[in-house]
Every structure is written in C-alpha cells, then in structure tokens.
C-alpha cells in the first residue's frame, strides 16, 4: 500500500520535474537576450519597438533574443557578469533536475535504496555547492566593482547560504541512501 503510494508520488513528481527540466533547457538560450532586453529598457522598449515597426511583440522578443546572443557581451561588465552567472546557474540547475529525474526513475522502479541513487544525490549536492560558489564570486565582484556593501542586500547574496545548505542536505541524504543500500544488501543476502 505504502509502496504503491510512494511510486505514484514519484511518478507525479517525475512529470513535474521533466516539465521543469524542459523549461530550464528552453530558457537557457534566452538568458543573454533577457539580460540585454533588461539592460536596454525592458518590456517597455519591446512594446515601443513593436508599435513603431508593426511587428508582433513576440517576434520582436525572439529577434532581440537572437541578436543579444552575441551583443550582450559588449554591453558592459555588469551585463556580462549577470548573463554569465545566470547561464552557469541555469546549467547547474539543469544538472540538479537531471539527477532528480534519475533518482525518481529508480524510486518508481522500486529501487529507492541503491548505490546509484546515493551517487546522483551526491552529484546534485556538489552542483549546489558550485551555485553557492558562483553566487559568492558574483557577490565579491559586485562589492569590488561598486565599492560598497549594497550587493549584500540582493537576491544574489541569498543564493550563497541557501544553496550551501541545500548542498549539505543532499550530501547527508546521499550518505543516508548509501547506508540504507548497504543495509538492504546485507538483508537481501541473509539466507
């Protein structure tokens, strides 16, 4: 009964994660465009461009995203750092989601406690540490660049402890799964 419920929940969660993973991958190429559009006036500029040219907003957005793929790197250091940070973090979150999908696939197959799941959780934890380190690097860069402690009060600073804690939790979870897998193997091999 409990096993069936766990599998059902894992199945639903796997669908949600798959959708999130696809959205994550689809959003990655749009990052330079979104940063560029944000730097050149945001949605208002898009609307004005659309009205003056008579082209639909979505088309203007798509064209801007395409152009900013290489133009964003010439806007300025702030835009470059933001685009790089978001691109790297987006890649990292895609890796975390992929590991989550692999874990859920094993749970659905009824093999929640196996060495592979421990490895997947550890990989996700390591990637969380990478995101935390990236946020720290961006924070330090911003402190040096602006010459003030104002970046301390941004969402970017929040990334550092949140992803550090998430990484540590995933590492603990990985150790627990490994221990459970060992106990299960021992139990299975008790005749």
């Amino acid at each position: 009964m409990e096993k069936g419920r766990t599998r059902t929940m894992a199945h639903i969660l796997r669908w949600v994660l798959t959708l999130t993973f696809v959205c994550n991958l689809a959003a990655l190429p749009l990052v330079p465009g979104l940063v560029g559009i944000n730097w050149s006036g945001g949605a208002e500029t898009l609307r004005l461009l659309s009205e003056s040219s008579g082209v639909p907003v979505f088309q203007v957005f798509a064209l801007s995203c395409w152009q900013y793929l290489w133009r964003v790197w010439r806007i300025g250091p702030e835009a470059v750092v933001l685009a790089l940070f978001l691109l790297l973090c987006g890649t990292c979150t895609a890796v975390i989601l992929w590991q989550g999908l692999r874990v859920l696939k094993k749970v659905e197959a009824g093999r929640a406690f196996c060495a592979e799941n421990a490895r997947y959780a550890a990989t996700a934890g390591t990637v969380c540490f990478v995101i935390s380190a990236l946020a720290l690097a961006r924070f330090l860069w911003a402190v040096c660049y602006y010459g003030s402690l104002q970046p301390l009060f941004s969402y970017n600073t929040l990334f550092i402890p949140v992803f550090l804690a998430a990484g540590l939790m995933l590492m603990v979870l990985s150790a627990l799964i490994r221990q459970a897998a060992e106990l299960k193997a021992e139990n299975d091999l008790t005749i």
Partner: protein
Amino acid sequence: MAICVNLDVMMARRKIGAGELAAKIGLTPANLSILKNNHAKAIRFSTLDALCEALECQPGDILEYRKE
C-alpha cells in the same frame, strides 16, 4: 570472508541435488545458490537448523573458519 560454506561438499556426500534440497528446506533455488557459492552475508538459525536436519549433519559440517 573467513567463514566458508561447505554446502556443496555435504550435498555431494548425501547425494542430494540443489533443487531437491531447496524444496526440502523451503528455500528458493536462487537463495540456496547464494549460500552454496559463498555469496551470503549471514545465515539465519532457522535456515541452518533446516539444513542440518535435511543433510543429517552438524553446523560445523556446513560452516568452516579459514584464516585469510
């Protein structure tokens, strides 16, 4: 592991096959194979009891300690 299971020796002495022994003591052939091939991590007293009864032997005839 330093503990060796000499089940195949006892089975040969008693001229009994794996399938027959498994059926006699209520084990699956797969589990008996794990035991016979020294892949088991532990053995329950109830299994040992059934094995000794079926093979008419002592636990020492089945289990042996070999210094590694």
